[in-house]
């Protein structure tokens, strides 16, 4: 990564630039997820997802990555409408998404969703305990999918509260008791809650690979997907991936696969 432009289209790699004719790939990501994809105090787009892609870009001279940021809720729509070629936002693979989108096959992290409640709340252990309670989540997220699925199977028991993400108020909503819980991945929680006012509780609700999302039935996308898989395997092998994970997420969350 060469540049520290304030965001939208930060170009990807020197390697590709040197290599001449590289295919331009527009990577869609966000700015609202600290440590994963966000803008640092120098105005530079960075984070685990971003830096990993920059590394992958270095390994793939045939591609040149360009980042485009947007609201999380618009990422998949943008992918679908060709605005971007790839979604990188620690996206978890789930059956609903698989139906409509393609994923690469080599995961670069692992996502274990659990219920998150305020530190002093011991009354909640499972989704069943959330019946009649308010649970915060953001529209289009995989966590929303879990809750909606639960409600579908149990005839609307959990009271889902959607947030747009603009106010960045998850922690305060849970701590203040406006909502009773939220759902988050193990490695996400310390990031959004550096002061540890929340805790995870109950069993893993889902356990899925974190992958890049691509368009379905698209040969170019398939080629890209395969190339990325190769690069990720390389980065795993030389330890770069786990180093990145430790650097940004505090621990290595890249090791295992979904059961």
């Amino acid at each position: 990564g060469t540049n520290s432009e304030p965001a939208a289209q930060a170009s990807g790699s020197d390697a590709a630039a040197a290599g001449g004719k590289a295919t331009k790939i527009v990577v869609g990501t966000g700015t609202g997820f600290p440590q994963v994809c966000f803008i640092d105090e120098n105005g530079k787009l960075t984070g685990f997802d971003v830096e990993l892609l920059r590394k992958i870009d270095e390994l793939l001279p045939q591609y040149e990555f360009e980042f485009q940021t947007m609201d999380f809720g618009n990422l998949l729509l943008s992918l679908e409408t060709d605005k971007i070629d790839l979604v990188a936002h620690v996206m978890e693979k789930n059956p609903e998404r698989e139906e409509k989108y393609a994923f690469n096959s080599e995961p670069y992290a692992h996502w274990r969703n659990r219920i998150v409640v305020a530190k002093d709340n011991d009354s909640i252990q499972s989704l069943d305990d959330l019946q009649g309670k308010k649970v915060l989540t953001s529209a289009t997220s995989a966590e929303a999918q879990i809750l909606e699925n639960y409600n579908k199977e149990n005839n609307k028991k959990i009271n889902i509260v959607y947030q747009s993400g603009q106010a960045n108020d998850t922690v305060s909503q849970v701590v203040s008791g406006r909502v009773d819980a939220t759902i988050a991945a193990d490695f996400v929680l310390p990031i959004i809650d550096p002061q540890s006012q929340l805790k995870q509780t109950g069993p893993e609700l889902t356990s899925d690979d974190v992958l890049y999302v691509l368009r379905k039935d698209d040969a170019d996308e398939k080629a890209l997907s395969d190339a990325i898989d190769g690069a990720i395997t390389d980065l795993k092998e030389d330890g770069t991936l786990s180093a990145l994970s430790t650097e940004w997420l505090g621990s290595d969350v890249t090791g295992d696969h979904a059961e």
Partner: protein
Amino acid sequence: MGAPFDIGYVFSFLPKLLDTLGVTLLIVAGSLLTGIVAGFLVALPRMYKIPVLRTLSGVYLSFFRGTPILIQLFLFYYGLPEILKLVGLDLTRAPVMFFVILTYGLHTGAYAAEMIRASVEAVDRGQVEAAYAAGMTPYQAFSRIILPQALGIAVPVFSNLVIALLKDTSLAFTLGVMEMTGKAQTLGTLTQHFIETYIALAFIYLIISFTLEKMLLAAERRLTRHENREDKRESIFRLKKRGSYRTVLADINIGKGGGA
């Protein structure tokens, strides 16, 4: 809500937000240009009552004034390229800024069209007749008599329009344009000092709109200096005298009542 309130952050955020002022102003200027062109195109068929076109501009006006700009942004950013693909034009990868300026431009165009029509119509009919009676051609009458007067009438409405546009740009970040509001959010996320960022943000918007308003007011004074009377009677309830077209439009607020 993160950290406790600290006024110091407000000041430290100001320069950082100002970094992106250029983007905000670019959107405003670009949309304004687009909007005025669109406004003329839409206003003309309505003023000259051209069949079909007039109905079309009616629909245009109704749509852009009838739906929130936020939704218009989505529809244009995602929908327009799909439609254009049908006619073989691929705009999918055009920069976001293009769509943002286009949408704000078309949105502004709807209000500009009404501004143009209302100001031209507010010019006393007798002015045109006097011009015709003196043997001017319609073009001469329009450019030398109507337009200069309509400009003066339009300024206050234009001022509202520009400021509404400025404020509306605060929604462009939803499509990922890193303008001031988007920047404010990233600053808030980074530091957890949300309220301070938004106060700083509001402050900057306030200064800009205030400056714009004053500049346009000066322009209005200049353009309507012929209407200045020496004896301005001050009073809560104004005595309306016939003949001054300023009174016709002075209170019309074709602009928008709220935020988005």
